[in-house]
């Protein structure tokens, strides 16, 4: 966990007071809605279809049990008893009242939670691997660097009014769980030939109307230079990013229009000018060490690799099914990372009730050193569970509805709020997800299908990351009716790719059938049972799928 110090706490409290004043001026009419809009967006407050939506940051996806309890409190006291975890390690509340927002923020600030820059045209919440610090084979904990970037980008005086939103993601593992290639800046921590740690910097990734996979702008930037290099990128973007057209304002368009080489040269020129200047952002070892020292790790015990409790529980097929897709290898022997599915059959993806949050906070205290993680797949995780406790934990999770054994399977769907909440939506997302979880409710079938990610967005803004879903579903509007475009073969990991359209858009009522047909085609076409869906699409292309799915339509 990162422990806030006095300075971090002071800043958050000052932000709450500033926002309290801004809300007061809005309510008294001193601020126009146009002026206030930008101010509230800078603090995570959107106006949605029915009410204000309030988005809270969970930087790099790490939460303490105390913080999770406080989120539960906010859900209960100020909202309707539940919250929605998003694809960017945020939680959203959908029914908040403007006049009560400052108090909700104040309650959150007491436990070091804020909503700064969770929306608006600024640098957004920094996301990272939800297994940071516990994944085997990691170069080092990427949250140290995420926190440095978080601080650096918070209330930045030069970059708080960018052409458009700007998102960072950081990974330190060979397998990218942070989807860095679809972010404005993606950072991959690695070692160079001299054994020094630094970052491969990617730029210009992003989804939305014009999706791009990020491109490498610099293969190695030393850790001490990270902030100055980032500042150079942001400065070039702030000055030259397009402001005439909201759809062309993201950095990906600038990178695309200039070409990566020309863009890289602009950044390099800027960087050489400023990297050693008076106000240089060069980090010395002591500063990095100071941040590092404020991440604390549990006092792990020396435990056996396979405890008796686990051997016994292995006879229970239900436990085994859950263990197989929810439990992952921890870097410390005898411990495990446990993913908790927020995708129950028939439920809206990513939602958790206040009661679930409270119960989970207790379980985290009991079984995971008081720590919870939030992943971009809209699931939660307990990062430090002793393997001997797995059977007991499973029982407890099952009682609160958090043991659905579908992690990474076809019903582990990522979906945006869509037309049920979002004022920009063309079509519903949540009911499509709910229907699909019902279609694939049979766990045997799901196991047979294997790893398959379905992503759903209610409009081209792509909050559900449909472009990079193995199966991507995008809501569009045709003559006032909800239609859906379906793509296959996308992925968001280190081999990130955009999916390809499989055929003409289909009406709401046919989406689940088409997805079922795609899955059936895959089962027939795959070379071996362990050839994943995306790999079959990669090997064969879209055509054989299109033929099978659209032959009878």
């Amino acid at each position: 966990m990162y422990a806030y110090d006095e300075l971090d706490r002071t800043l958050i409290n000052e932000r709450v007071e500033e926002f309290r004043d801004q809300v007061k001026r809005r309510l008294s009419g001193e601020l126009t809605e146009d002026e206030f809009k930008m101010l509230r967006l800078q603090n995570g407050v959107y106006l949605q279809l029915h009410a204000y939506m309030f988005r809270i940051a969970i930087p790099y996806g790490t939460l303490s049990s105390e913080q999770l309890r406080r989120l539960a409190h906010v859900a209960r006291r100020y909202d309707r008893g539940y919250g929605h975890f998003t694809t960017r390690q945020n939680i959203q509340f959908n029914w908040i009242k403007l006049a009560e927002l400052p108090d909700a923020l104040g309650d959150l600030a007491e436990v070091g939670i804020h909503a700064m820059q969770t929306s608006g045209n600024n640098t957004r919440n920094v996301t990272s691997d939800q297994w940071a610090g516990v994944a085997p084979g990691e170069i080092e904990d990427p949250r140290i660097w995420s926190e440095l970037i978080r601080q650096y980008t918070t209330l930045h005086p030069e970059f708080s009014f960018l052409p458009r939103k700007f998102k960072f993601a950081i990974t330190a593992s060979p397998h990218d769980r942070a989807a860095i290639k679809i972010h404005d800046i993606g950072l991959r921590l690695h070692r160079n030939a001299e054994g020094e740690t630094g970052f491969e910097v990617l730029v210009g990734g992003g989804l939305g109307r014009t999706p791009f996979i990020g491109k490498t702008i610099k293969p190695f930037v030393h850790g001490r230079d990270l902030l100055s290099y980032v500042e150079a990128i942001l400065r070039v973007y702030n000055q030259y990013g397009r402001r005439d057209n909201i759809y062309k304002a993201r950095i990906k368009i600038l990178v695309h229009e200039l070409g990566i080489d020309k863009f890289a040269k602009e950044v390099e020129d800027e960087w050489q000018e400023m990297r050693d200047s008076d106000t240089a952002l060069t980090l010395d070892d002591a500063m990095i060490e100071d941040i590092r020292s404020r991440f604390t790790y549990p006092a792990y015990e020396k435990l056996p690799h396979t405890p008796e409790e686990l051997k016994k529980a292995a006879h229970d097929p239900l436990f085994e099914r859950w263990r197989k897709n929810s439990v992952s290898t921890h870097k410390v022997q005898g411990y495990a990372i446990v993913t908790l599915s927020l995708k129950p059959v028939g439920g809206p993806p990513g939602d958790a009730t206040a009661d679930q949050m409270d119960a989970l906070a207790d379980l985290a205290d009991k079984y995971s050193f008081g720590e919870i993680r939030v992943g971009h797949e809209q699931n939660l995780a307990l990062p430090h569970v002793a393997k001997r406790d797995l059977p007991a934990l499973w029982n407890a999770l099952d009682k609160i509805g958090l043991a659905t054994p579908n992690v990474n399977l076809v019903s582990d769907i990522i979906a945006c709020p869509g037309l049920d909440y979002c004022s920009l939506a063309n079509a519903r997302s949540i009911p499509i997800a709910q229907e699909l979880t019902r279609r694939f409710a049979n766990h045997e079938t799901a196991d047979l299908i294997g790893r398959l990610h379905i992503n759903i967005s209610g409009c081209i803004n792509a909050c559900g990351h449909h472009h990079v879903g193995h199966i991507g579903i995008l809501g569009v509007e045709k003559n006032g009716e909800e239609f859906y475009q379906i793509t296959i073969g996308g992925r968001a990991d280190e081999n990130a790719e955009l999916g390809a359209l499989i055929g003409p858009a289909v009406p709401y009522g046919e989406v689940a059938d088409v997805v079922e047909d795609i899955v059936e085609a895959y089962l027939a076409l795959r070379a071996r049972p362990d050839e994943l869906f995306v790999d079959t699409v990669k090997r064969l292309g879209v055509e054989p799928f299109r033929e099978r799915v659209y032959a009878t339509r």
Partner: protein
Amino acid sequence: MPLVKDGKITGDEFIHVADDAEVPGGGAILLSSTRFLGDPEALSRRAGKTGVIWPNNRDLDDLVPYLDRLAVVALVFPTFRDGRAYSQARLLRERHNYRGELRATGQVLRDQFLFMLRAGFDSFEVKKPADAEAFAITVKRYSVFYQPTGDGRMTALHRRMMLRHSESASP
């Protein structure tokens, strides 16, 4: 429109001279960039103080040679959402060592004051009188700053380092 300078509401000694009006020999004036670049040598050497209003999409390189002869550079916020002038301000102050008055003009509102101050602005043509009056309080909203700029405020990282030093130095 009230002018806030060095933290206080003051009168503006500078007169805006339109592009087709005659440039007076004396007195403090503000010119558009186009007008100024028409004859920068002469205009920057006139007897009275000269200032230039520099648009946020024009390269600063054209202005840099004359900086030490200018009394004011006014940077423009066509709307408060357009943040290009923040970068220009920092470049003028931190890279080109401009020491004259750096003025924020356009849609300048209360909730941008501190960002502007940190970027190097020291005078503000404020849209609303109430905002101008609230200037002094508003810029004290924050006492912690995460990023270094040319304004000299110490960053949180540096304060932590100092704190550590004093802790380890005391017995």
